[in-house]
C-alpha cells in the first residue's frame, strides 16, 4: 500500500500561470511534509516544507497547503517559469524528521514559454 501518492504523473502549464501539484497520504502519523524538485541527472533538492501544526507555508513563488482532515497537500507555484520544469516529489515523515521520508512517485511539471 503506497502511503504517499501523487496521482498526476505529469502536468503542463503556460509560463506565468499557476502550477498546482497535489499529494495525498494515508498514514495519520505523518507530521512533516516536504517537496523536492529534481532535474535530470541530478539529485532531488529541497524546495519547501510544512509541519502538521500549520496549514500553509509560503516561500517566494512557492506555497504549500496542508489539509490534515483530507490527508492532502498541494504545492502552488505562481507565476510559473520555464526553469520550474522538473520532477516534483512529495515526501512525508514522522516525528518532524526529514530522514526516512516516504516519497511519492513524482509529478513531471513542464512550463511552456
Amino acid at each position: 500500500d503506497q502511503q504517499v501518492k501523487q496521482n498526476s504523473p505529469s502536468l503542463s502549464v503556460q509560463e506565468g500561470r499557476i502550477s498546482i501539484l497535489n499529494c495525498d497520504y494515508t498514514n495519520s502519523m505523518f507530521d512533516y511534509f516536504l517537496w523536492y524538485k529534481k532535474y535530470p541527472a541530478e539529485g532531488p533538492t529541497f524546495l519547501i516544507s510544512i509541519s502538521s501544526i500549520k496549514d500553509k507555508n509560503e516561500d517566494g513563488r512557492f506555497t504549500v497547503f496542508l489539509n490534515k482532515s483530507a490527508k492532502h497537500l498541494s504545492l502552488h507555484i505562481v507565476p510559473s517559469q520555464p526553469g520550474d520544469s522538473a520532477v516534483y516529489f512529495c515526501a512525508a515523515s514522522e516525528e518532524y524528521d526529514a530522514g526516512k521520508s516516504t516519497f511519492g512517485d513524482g509529478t513531471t511539471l513542464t512550463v511552456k514559454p
Partner: protein
Amino acid sequence: GAGVSQSPSNKVTEKGKDVELRCDPISGHTALYWYRQSLGQGLEFLIYFQGNSAPDKSGLPSDRFSAERTGGSVSTLTIQRTQQEDSAVYFCASSVRTDLHFGNGTRLTVT
C-alpha cells in the same frame, strides 16, 4: 560549497557481480541515508546511519545489500550478486533533520 558527492556516477555490471557505491556526505552532517529510485518510481528508503548508533537497515530489500559508514563520514553501499531488478539510481543523502541534501546519484545498470 561542497555538497554530497557520489561515485561512480554510472556503473554497468554483469548479473552476478558485486558492486560498491560510494558516498561522501556534507561535512558535519551526522545523519546519512541511502535511497534508490527505480524507473518511474519514487525514492525508496534503504538504510540510515546516525552518528555512532547502529544503522537502521529496515529498508534493505535483501541480504545481498549492505552498507558501511567509516569514521562517521564516507559510506559505501555494497550489492552482492547483482540482479537485473537492482538496476536503479542510488542516491545518498545527508541531513540536519529538517531536510535531506542529496547527491547526484549513481545509475546502476545490471545486464
